[in-house]
């Protein structure tokens, strides 16, 4: 695997998040096998792969929704391997889950309030919510609307806004473009760019390989629970195997 050597950027101690040989699964079923990955502060990283590869599982392990059966997870020098989810948010990792998972019978504003549940976030609720509303002016008009009645694109905005309310250092996004019209997908990727520019570190799972590689610095290719390839996005775009299998060229 040639791309492996090119892909390694030397991160040294600078890595914000390090996964080392993480394995995880559901009951007796194993979905991840010895996955290692690094995210440096300020980077945007993509995780791509076919359906059922274990991408969402990987995100769940990082945010503490699922326990790793072995391996290590270190965030800013702190081991977080067996820390419960609510402590991981406290440490500064926010997770925009697959399928958005909004609280449908709460208003937009209440969804954002829940995102700011942590004491440290509550203190900055007003300025954070102003910032999120500036990012998504559409939501300001719909503050009092029940989240379940929003359009798909609007719901995705709320999901991202809700995660941003905790003022995370690292933002995990699981398929933010899923189920959206092409035009809206473009908007979502614009948004990811803007969030990056605000200085957030982003780890994003996507099916939309072409577009995600335009946004991220590096990416990992996950297949049946294992990392197959990793590298700078520019190089991955040129990789013939990837082009053939995933971009369809």
């Amino acid at each position, binding site marked *: 695997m040639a791309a492996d050597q090119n892909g390694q950027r030397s991160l040294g101690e600078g890595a914000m998040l390090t996964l080392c040989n993480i394995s995880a699964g559901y009951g007796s079923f194993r979905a991840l096998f010895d996955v290692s990955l690094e995210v440096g502060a300020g980077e945007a990283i993509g995780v791509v792969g076919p359906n059922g590869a274990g991408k969402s599982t990987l995100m769940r392990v990082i*945010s*503490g*929704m699922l326990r790793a059966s072995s391996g290590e997870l270190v965030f800013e020098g702190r081991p977080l391997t067996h820390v*419960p*989810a*609510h402590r*991981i*948010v*406290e440490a500064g990792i*926010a*997770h925009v*889950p697959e399928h958005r*998972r909004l*609280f*449908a*019978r*709460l208003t937009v504003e*209440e969804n954002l*309030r*829940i*995102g*700011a*549940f*942590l004491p440290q*976030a*509550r203190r900055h609720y007003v300025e954070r919510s102003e910032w999120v509303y500036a990012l998504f002016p559409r939501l300001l008009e719909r503050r009092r609307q029940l989240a379940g009645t929003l359009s798909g694109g609007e719901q995705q905005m709320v999901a991202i806004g*809700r*995660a941003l309310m*905790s003022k995370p250092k690292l933002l995990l996004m699981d398929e933010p473009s899923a189920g959206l019209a092409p035009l809206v997908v473009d908007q979502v990727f614009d948004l990811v760019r803007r969030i990056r520019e605000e200085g957030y570190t982003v780890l994003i799972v996507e099916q939309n390989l072409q577009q995600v590689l335009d946004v991220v610095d590096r990416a990992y290719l996950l297949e049946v629970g294992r990392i197959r390839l990793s590298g700078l996005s520019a190089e991955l775009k040129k990789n013939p195997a990837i082009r053939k299998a995933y971009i369809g060229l």
Partner: protein
Amino acid sequence: MDIYLFEAIINGILLGGVLALLALGLNLIFGVIDVVWICYAELVMCGMYMIFWLHSFFGWPILLASFAAILGVAGLGVLLHLLVISPILGSAPINQLLATGGMLFFLQSLATLLFGTDFRNIGVRLPLIELGDIFISYSRLLAFGTALIGAVALYLFLSRTYLGIAMRAIAQDREIMGLMGVDQRRVYLITSAVGGALAGLAACLLVLQYDVHPFIGLSFGPITFMICVLGGLGNMIGGFIAAFVMSQIIAVGGYYFSIEISYVLAFVFFIVLMFIRPQGLLAR
């Protein structure tokens, strides 16, 4: 209109206040934790005994004793959650139902053991208020007012505070609460405490009107369950309204027939409504 009927209607509204309080507590617990405390009325019974004990035995002033009882029952709620509910949170709903049903039996017997089956009275009887020809019991008025205040306070808590919003959210998606920084176990404990405190508050109000005995829970536990189902389990507003509907049936039925018949009427009404609106009065 017949003056006594009018009196019955007024008393029905006032009784509705206390029932509404109980329905609120039960709905809160069901909404957040997804269990039904079958022994909820028995917690009220414990609260009534606490007041009786502290007031009549240790001579505490009634207000102080009431306050202590609210805290005490809140503590019981927490204990119930820790010892009985949390070990079986993952098991079948029927087992959760039965475990709290076992607590009903346990609390009744424990009260019998400690206090005997005598009817106890705290000896505080508030005067009747005379409005023209109508007599309204002052204690019922107090109960109604307190229940209303309690309901408003709960409403504000659930709509304005972070914790309250989290409690409403948790029923919609338990799995991702952690991602919001919410510690589910802590929310459950707080909910149990609040649910217990509401039972304690109801105890303070009921002890002014009724004698305490180990089986008193049976006289308003079942009606509270009917109210909750009628209003839609977990639906606080529905439960609140249903409490007043049911209390009217009981009060007016009691005026025309006997008190037992009025409960039977309430049940028949309940069954008929189950035919028409199975998911509760306010179901969409």
